[in-house]
């Protein structure tokens, strides 16, 4: 018997109440494996971001189940879901979403301090190490508005990796970047999957990124229309 996948969606659905109800995600079946870079693609409004929020435990499904290493996390309380996000998930969004009052280092330290498993100096060392990995060691004490778009996004990725999560989720992480920075981020994501054995899931409408993914999930009208293993 093989180990269960990191994350498995079984007939996962999300419907907005209304008349008629709006179906965002319709019975999606999907398996997310560690060491793989998965891209979710599809036309805008097809429900790919909605699916990502469901997979990332930010949103609650209205139907189906979501299994995290075989455990059904659908019925968990808000606090338990927050704890899972804190310990095991890292998010990167289209906009960097750094906290403007804090400098780069403090932003990266935020999830580490919230988890509170490291002392403050340890947390700072860990955050500096991550910023170094992102090539930003000299920008640690800069506030977000003094950083370029690419730098901000890399700080955001460092923050997503702060608690060493097995799953990294990206919602159009390159959507706001030029081609150079965009390529850099995609390369980073591939390394996270291949070198560090994390599961990386990325929503994108950029066909170039989708080409570089190990698994390409296509969506149409809220349904998963195709799952293709690449490379």
């Amino acid at each position: 018997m093989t180990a269960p996948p990191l994350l498995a969606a079984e007939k996962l659905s999300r419907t907005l109440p209304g008349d008629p109800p709006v179906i965002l995600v319709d019975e999606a079946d999907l398996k997310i494996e560690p060491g793989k870079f998965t891209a979710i693609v599809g036309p805008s409004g097809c429900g790919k971001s909605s699916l990502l929020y469901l997979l990332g435990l930010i949103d609650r499904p209205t139907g189906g189940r979501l299994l995290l290493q075989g455990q059904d996390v659908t019925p968990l309380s808000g606090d338990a879901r927050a704890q899972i996000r804190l310990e095991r998930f890292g998010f990167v969004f289209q906009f960097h979403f750094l906290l403007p009052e804090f400098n780069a280092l403090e932003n990266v330290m935020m999830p580490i301090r919230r988890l509170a498993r490291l002392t403050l100096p340890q947390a700072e060392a860990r955050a500096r190490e991550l910023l170094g990995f992102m090539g930003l060691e000299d920008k640690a004490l800069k506030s977000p508005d003094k950083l370029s778009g690419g730098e901000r996004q890399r700080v955001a990725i460092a923050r997503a990796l702060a608690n060493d999560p097995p799953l990294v989720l990206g919602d159009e992480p390159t959507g706001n970047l030029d081609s150079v920075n965009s390529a850099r981020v995609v390369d980073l994501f591939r390394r996270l999957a291949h070198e560090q054995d994390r599961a990386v899931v990325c929503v994108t409408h950029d066909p170039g990124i989708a080409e570089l993914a190990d698994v390409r999930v296509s969506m149409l009208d809220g349904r998963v229309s195709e799952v293709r293993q690449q490379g």
Partner: protein
Amino acid sequence: MFARLSLLLHIAAKHLLMRQRQTLVAVSGVAVGVGFFLAVSAMMIGSQTDFVKTLIDAAPHIIISDELRSPPPQPGLRAYGSKGAVELHGYKVRSEVRGIKDWQQILREIDAMPGAIGSPSLSGAVTLRLGGRDEAMAVIGIDPTIESRVSTISDKLRSGRLIDLERIQGGVIIGEDQAQRLGLGMGDIVAATSARGGTRSLRIVGLFKKGQQLGSGSGYMLLREAQSLLARPFVINRIGIKLADPYAAEDVAKGLEARHGYKAESWQERSADFLGLLLTRNVIMYSVVSAILLVASFGIYTAVSNSVADKRRDIAILRSMGFSEGDLQLVFVVEGLALALAGIVAGWLLGFLLMSVLGSLEFSIQGEVRRLPLDRSTRQYLIAATASLIAGVIAAWLPARKASRVDPVDILRGAV
């Protein structure tokens, strides 16, 4: 737990520091509220204490008189009862000898209480007669050394001393007003006739100030001489008691009355109407100053509310990062708490300054220079702090609850 709290405090502090103007407005609101609460309550409580002190000092704390709250049952009724088939009418009412019996024993009992002093006195009506002019006067026989320790009548003398009563045969102290009406001055002699017909010559050895309760129709004499003038030797009909703790008067009076049967009236009972008035005054004061504090907390509500509205994006990102609803609620409650605390400290300072200014004001009342009586007890500082803290936390908690309910999906989706 501590690490988490310090992180949330850090976030809250950054929010406040980034919004200095809002923070300043909210803090000054609380400060003004606390400051004026302190100033107003200091004046109200100060004047009340002053007033109550006057009430307490106006007369002995407890006065035992030879009156009974209800007349004793007549011997006939006692013998036959009122339940039987016999109903009695027209029986001869036994006349009681007025005066407090076994007053020595009551006095001994009072003196046994720590810090308590009892002063026996006899009062009765006499008529002062001078040159065809009659003036009614209530004569009060006292022991000057004891009485001066029980009441403040010595302070009310315009001229003469209480102790002079012992030195001068037939000495009397009367009110300035009455002396004026009779055309009498210090050292003059006046004839006094009691209701039982005894007449004696009295010499004025002291005068009470005008405008005092004693001023118009009371005269103080030596107890012995009053007993002889009123032809009631060895009788007293009033015991004035001073207690170490004036506020115990009500209970002590009840005890004395229960044991001895004579009416024992405490100063509280005597001034029930004034005390009722003070209660109303306090209710008014506390509702006004509470309103001040409440309005101040609106500032906190607005500040925290705006902070929540401004930080919806940050709330969403923190939630996605794994911060719980409770975390975010706490961040904003802490912001309100910090505003309240800063406001309280500033308000204490403001209140202290206001009190110093009020305390330095001088008023002239009938030629006497007076200052406002102020109550500067720490209790008021604590009440103001507690009330604003509670109001502040509630004011912050309402918008903070909204912060915790922000759905990150709405914000994240909307931003894309």
